[in-house]
């Protein structure tokens, strides 16, 4: 019975999104639409990164690399598989949708594999060292793409058509994937596995003493997180009609960190709010032109000093709405 209800609700959400899409396209300028789509992509990035940095308490500051892998993989696969899939399914929006989602899944897979490769050696390290290693991997991935001539090196990859990659990304797809990923992450976080991850965050040695296979779980969570970044990358690629290595610099990883910090490390709803915040705030700060980035950095520092738990801490929005004190764990404390 539950399955029927769940499917019905899923269908309702999808129909709602479809309807909203028509409304958004009619009611908003392309500029505003671009920001909305970017906000959606940010949500995916934030929620995915939050699983690792927030829920599991590991420091990953090179996630832009996984987004890059997903973007390039999705772009490449989308271009190469377009012809065969159209051959079978004809041209038309259904075939396009299939190509797009196959490409996205390819992006997620490649990114996830990269996540495994990066995670396996690194997640034995703790704290700051892990942070620098992930940073290093992020940079290595970018340097590799920068030198890959078959992927366009510095100019980037935009398929064979001079007008770039097909622009499959639209409101519906972005937010459909947002819904999927938020649901998956939410289910994971509030499941047994999720509790094990939280245990790892709180005290890894104690968790291991309780027979939690911490390294294995960390690596799996890391790979999953990388895969979600890959999806975001694929959506990004098909919005921009092209990908280039410079889009996935360290600054992008910092943006992702700001997203989860602002909302609250460990909170999914916080990550969502943070993702929207980053997409919107930079645009709103345009009037400050030259001082934009200086203010952005100052904001980061001030948040860390004044309210490091961000907006929601580790709480979720629906905990607040319920006014139930039960779901308010203390912020993670490190030993002296």
């Amino acid at each position, binding site marked *: 019975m539950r399955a029927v209800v769940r499917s019905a609700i899923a269908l309702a959400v999808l129909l709602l999104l479809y309807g909203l899409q028509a409304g958004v396209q009619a009611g908003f300028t392309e500029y*505003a639409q671009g920001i909305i789509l970017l906000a959606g992509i940010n949500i995916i990035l934030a929620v995915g990164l939050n699983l690792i940095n927030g829920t599991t308490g590991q420091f990953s500051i090179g996630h832009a690399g996984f987004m890059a892998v997903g973007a390039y993989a999705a772009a490449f696969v989308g271009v190469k598989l377009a012809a065969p899939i159209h051959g079978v399914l004809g041209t038309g929006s259904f075939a396009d949708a299939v190509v797009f989602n196959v490409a996205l899944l390819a992006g997620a897979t490649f990114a996830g594999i990269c996540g495994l490769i990066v995670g396996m050696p690194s997640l034995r390290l703790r704290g700051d060292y892990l942070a620098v290693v992930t940073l290093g991997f992020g940079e290595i991935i970018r340097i590799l793409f920068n030198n890959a001539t078959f992927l366009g090196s510095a100019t980037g990859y935009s398929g064979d058509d001079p007008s770039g990659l097909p622009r499959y990304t639209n409101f519906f797809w972005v937010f459909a994937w947002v819904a999927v990923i938020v649901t998956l992450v939410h289910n994971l976080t509030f499941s047994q596995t999720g509790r094990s991850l939280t245990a790892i965050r709180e005290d890894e040695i104690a968790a291991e003493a309780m027979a939690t296979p911490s390294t294995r779980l960390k690596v799996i969570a890391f790979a999953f997180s990388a895969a979600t970044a890959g999806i975001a990358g694929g959506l990004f690629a098909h919005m921009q009609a092209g990908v280039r290595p410079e889009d996935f610099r360290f600054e992008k990883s910092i943006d992702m960190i700001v997203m989860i910090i602002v909302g609250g490390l460990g909170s999914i709803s916080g990550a969502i709010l943070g993702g929207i915040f980053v997409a919107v705030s930079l645009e709103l700060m345009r009037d400050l032109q030259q001082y934009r*980035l200086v203010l952005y950095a100052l904001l980061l520092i001030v948040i860390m000093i004044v309210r490091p738990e961000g907006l929601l801490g580790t709480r979720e929005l629906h905990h607040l709405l319920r006014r139930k004190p039960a779901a308010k764990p203390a912020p993670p404390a490190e030993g002296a």
Partner: protein
Amino acid sequence: MRLQRRTLISGLCATALASAIGCKKSATDGAGNGAAEAAEIAIGHYASMTGSTAHFGQDTDRGVRLAIEEANAQGGVLNKKLKLVTLDDRGDSAEAANAVNRLIDVEKVSAVLGEVASSLSLAGGRVAQRRKIPMISPTSTNPKVTEVGDYIFRVCFIDPFQGKVMATFARNNLKLDKVAILKDVKNDYSIGLADAFQKAFTASGGTIVVEQSYSQGDTDFSAQVTAIRGTPAQAVFVPGYYSEVGTIARTADRLGLKVPLLGGDGWDSPDLFKIGGEAINGSYFSDHFAPDVATEKSKAFVANFTKKYGQAPTGLGALGYEAALVLIDAIKRAGKNDPNAIREAIAATKDFDGVTGKITIDAQRNPQKSAVVLKVEGGKAKFETAIAP
């Protein structure tokens, strides 16, 4: 049930917040609309004003701004003042696309200038093409940029042409057989030029003895120079930007690599001589105009630029100025403030006398103009020869 509620809440929150922004923008659109149309012609410029290539974007913007101000001082265009809106893209392609969208939706521009980097011109160009707003890139040299569509133009050489220019010069004028290449792999301009040079040079019988590389922003070139020193190269083709080229020249001098350097218009900057010092003397580079045999217009431009900004223009500033001039001229010829008409007029540009030589826009929306080869002597660039397309 909790999960579905969460998803809905998150979705609605996102949409609500986004609507708030969208509505805010729409509101300002409505308010500014009528007034802007009547009194001014809005032109957009998107550039990297912050980030690691900020000085390139700022240079270009200075040239654009000067052209717009001069035009306004002479009464504007079609009896209206020109309004220039420059938006920063942080060197990021998503921001570039955003910037162009914002220029079109919020600032209501009739045309767009930008960008310096070809990959960013591609990002912004795709938006401009889709929304049918003409775009002129001042300095993007990758052939792909104008292939995006018929609304995208440029006023600079494309890589295949400029690479061939220096290859021809090296073969025919300097009679060189063996050349090394030192290119900037972080910069598609440099990669494109290096490729074009290599093709043309080897096609005319020369050999490339070694290809070394560096990344924009590097300051240490001793490894590459040392490696080239060990080859029989008679010259080194360094198609990069002046900041690195100057240091490369000094490093070469310091490490005993005495051969001349060859380069492209990325060298064009007063800082080249400051950084390169005496080490850069005896080298050659291709460019749009020669300061010592310049036309009256070019000389006036250099003087005005220096007076306004306190520094001499780089090649980027000159091209920014040029792009703006071409656009202004096109608006005049179009006769009305309509993007489609402006596009037609740009495409029909013929023998336009700018500061970087006579420009005719060809069918691929690239300019047909001659290049000059300059020799660096005594801390200045001097005219050596001209090479036509």
